[in-house]
């Protein structure tokens, strides 16, 4: 844990320990390759996972015993059969508990994990054994989840997601929080293709991050109160009251109870998953943290977002709030509030927040006027900013939405907007389209329009261009497949820190000047004690990058030897990308053309 982050940094060395600065020689560390040995999750994790069972046993036993105390015919021994002593009863209960605990312990003992340079492996099971292995560079997202009880113990669960869209590929429950974060940093660094210092492979620094958006709790509450739940509550209340008045039966009022339970549950989940939401950017991708009782910290590496949707329920228009949800291959679709929270990149935010988040997900908007184009997509209608809408002749098919239904194409993404009351703007980067289809029914044909559907990985966003003019739809269909092919050829490597073959990295000179630093040598290169500080944070070769002096906290250590070419950028605080309005009169262009 060297690359500590101010928000949740906990002091103290991680499991690997930290080499002292004087330990620059470090020959005896070479053969030890931590991270390749087998480990187990924390020993009390069975308790944290199985606490409900334990509580249930204690509750039932305890209640019987407690009620027995007040039974008039009893002598305080509870409802025990004659001849069975209290000690025996307690012994039986204890035995059951111990048996369960033993089973948990055995299963804990047989569950081991290992992170190698290329894979993460988990072996589990006693009778039916399972050995699972996932490639690190296939990572789609890494979550660190802390359920409430685990938080009390300082434990955390690590979830490693691949593009399976179902269960997490690897779930490690539970690790110490520091270990979990160290493991996440290790996995992300290896998945990114960061070359580690060959002498200290265990020294992996968590990539620094910069906070981009933080949501105040008041806004989360406001958003919940203004959400569709409130509309549903009002409609349901009106219906119940109307029915009660018409049929003059007050009994109908009892149906308020389930409605209220549902509404309160919905408010609660919105609050608990949106509470304390923070989004940050780092070289390892987008980081999100949130949660009231259970906390969750998600990392989505660059290029893993498959589609983005910016939506606005009708009442949020009063405050100008939006929600941003994304399709990430590892997250899949889930109806649960947990699953929905996972795929929301911004539970509620202002237009500026949305643009900030979009700039993270789509660093290159592919248009010189990103703010105007996206604003027109979020709130606008008609043809402003290059949107193509439903032709006028088909307005009968969508009397309200025909001026809003539309799409716009930038160099990097396709923007699809729809919805008048529930506004939505879906954004698909060109290289992320899995396939696309064009649909036309008999009525569409009569009006000369067609629908276009874009298939992406499973998730809450399903982009669909509705009722486009047939010729336009075909142009888009063909143009889009060409653009997608083009974008795929250009798209970066899966290992996002791997040097792209082609333009030489600025640090080539540096690497050449210190050939001993190459991994092949393993030489235990003596490094002057001052050297690490000289390298601190900056790109080797003096690239104009942010200096760590910008950081709120100072001491962050680089690997003692400057790693070749590419470990540099990862340790540099990323500049949060930002889209600037193109024209000086940008504010007037927002949504009113």
């Amino acid at each position, binding site marked *: 844990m060297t690359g500590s982050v101010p928000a949740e940094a906990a002091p103290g060395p991680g499991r690997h320990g930290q080499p002292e600065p004087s330990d620059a020689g470090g020959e005896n560390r070479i053969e030890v390759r931590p991270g390749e040995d087998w480990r187990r999750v924390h020993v009390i994790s069975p308790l944290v996972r199985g606490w409900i069972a334990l509580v249930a046993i204690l509750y039932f036993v305890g209640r019987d015993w407690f009620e027995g105390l007040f039974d008039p015919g009893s002598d305080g021994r509870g409802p025990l059969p004659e001849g069975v002593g209290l000690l025996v009863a307690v012994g039986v209960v204890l035995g059951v508990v111990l048996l369960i605990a033993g089973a948990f312990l055995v299963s804990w003992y047989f569950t081991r994990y290992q992170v190698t340079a290329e894979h993460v492996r988990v072996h589990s099971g006693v009778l039916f054994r399972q050995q699972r292995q996932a490639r690190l560079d296939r990572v789609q997202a890494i979550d660190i989840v802390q359920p409430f009880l685990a938080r009390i113990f300082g434990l955390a669960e690590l979830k490693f997601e691949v593009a399976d*869209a179902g269960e997490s590929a690897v779930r490690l429950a539970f690790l110490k929080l520091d270990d979990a974060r160290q493991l996440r940093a290790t996995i992300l660094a290896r998945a990114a293709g960061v070359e580690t210092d060959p002498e200290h492979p265990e020294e992996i620094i968590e990539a620094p991050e910069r906070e981009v958006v933080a949501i105040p709790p008041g806004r989360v509450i406001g958003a919940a109160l203004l959400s569709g739940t409130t509309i549903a509550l009002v409609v349901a209340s009106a219906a119940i009251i109307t029915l009660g008045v018409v049929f003059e039966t007050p009994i109908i009022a009892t149906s308020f109870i389930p409605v209220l339970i549902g509404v309160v549950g919905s408010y609660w989940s919105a609050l608990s998953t949106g509470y304390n939401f923070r989004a940050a950017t780092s070289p390892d991708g987008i980081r999100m943290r949130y949660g009231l009782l259970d906390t969750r910290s998600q990392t989505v590496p660059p290029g893993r977002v498959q589609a983005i949707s910016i939506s606005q329920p009708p009442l949020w228009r009063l405050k100008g709030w939006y929600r941003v949800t994304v399709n990430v291959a590892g997250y899949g679709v889930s109806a649960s509030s947990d699953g929905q929270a996972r795929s929301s990149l911004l539970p509620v935010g202002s237009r500026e927040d949305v643009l900030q988040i979009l700039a993270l997900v789509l660093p290159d908007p592919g248009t010189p006027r990103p703010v105007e184009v996206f604003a027109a997509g979020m709130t606008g209608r008609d043809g402003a900013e290059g949107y193509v809408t439903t032709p006028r002749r088909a307005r009968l098919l969508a009397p309200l939405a025909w001026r809003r239904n539309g799409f716009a194409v930038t160099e990097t993404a396709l923007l699809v907007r729809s919805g008048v009351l529930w506004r939505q703007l879906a954004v698909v980067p060109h290289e992320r389209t899995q*396939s696309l*289809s064009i649909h036309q029914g008999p009525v569409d044909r009569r009006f000369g329009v067609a629908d276009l559907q874009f298939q992406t990985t499973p998730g809450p966003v399903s982009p669909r261009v509705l009722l486009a003019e047939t010729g336009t739809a075909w142009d888009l*269909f063909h143009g889009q*497949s060409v653009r997608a092919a083009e974008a795929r050829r250009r*798209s970066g490597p899966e290992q996002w820190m791997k040097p792209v073959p082609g333009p030489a990295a600025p640090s080539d000179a540096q690497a050449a000047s210190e050939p001993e630093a190459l991994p092949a040598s393993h030489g235990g290169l003596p490094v002057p004690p001052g050297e690490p500080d000289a390298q601190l944070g900056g790109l080797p070769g003096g690239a104009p990058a942010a200096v760590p002096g910008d950081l709120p906290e100072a001491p962050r250590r680089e690997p003692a030897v400057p790693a070749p070419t590419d470990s540099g950028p990862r340790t540099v605080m990323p500049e949060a990308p930002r889209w600037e309005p193109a024209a000086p009169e940008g504010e007037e262009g927002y949504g009113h053309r």
Partner: protein
Amino acid sequence: MRREPIDPSGLEWSRVSPKYLRVRLLGWLIGSVVWLLITSVPLVLRLTGVWSSFPPAWIAWGLPAVVLVIVVWRGLLLPRQVGAIGYAERDDDLLVREGVFFQRTMVVPYGRMQYVDVAVGPLERVFGICTLKLHTASPATNASIPGLPTEEGTRLREQLSARGEARLAGL
């Protein structure tokens, strides 16, 4: 192959084997007979006098009649439906089209294919045809080409796999 207004221009569609129409017709025949038999039960019971009053005469006669109309309509539509299925291999992607009234054309880039299925049912095996299905990372990609002659299916599968490998992209 008949050109539809939804078709893109400058594309040569390959159509599926005419044997596929026979398979579909056989399936249609079996399904139709079963449905007709099931829906005729009240009528038969009424005519034989087992049930004399319960199903009114218009239901007893109407039910099989409606089913008959639907079945005949579907049977008449079948040749056109099968004729509407087409596929085209382009340099970078595969196009699949289908539908007479509700038309659909789908394009799947080779680099997006995760795997290719070739399935053969018992009826299809008798006629020597197969169904090829493309899978991408999106379950909504529903690109299947039924009624390919077996050797054409095998060729297409190999071709698609090879091209997919050559243009393989991440997710």
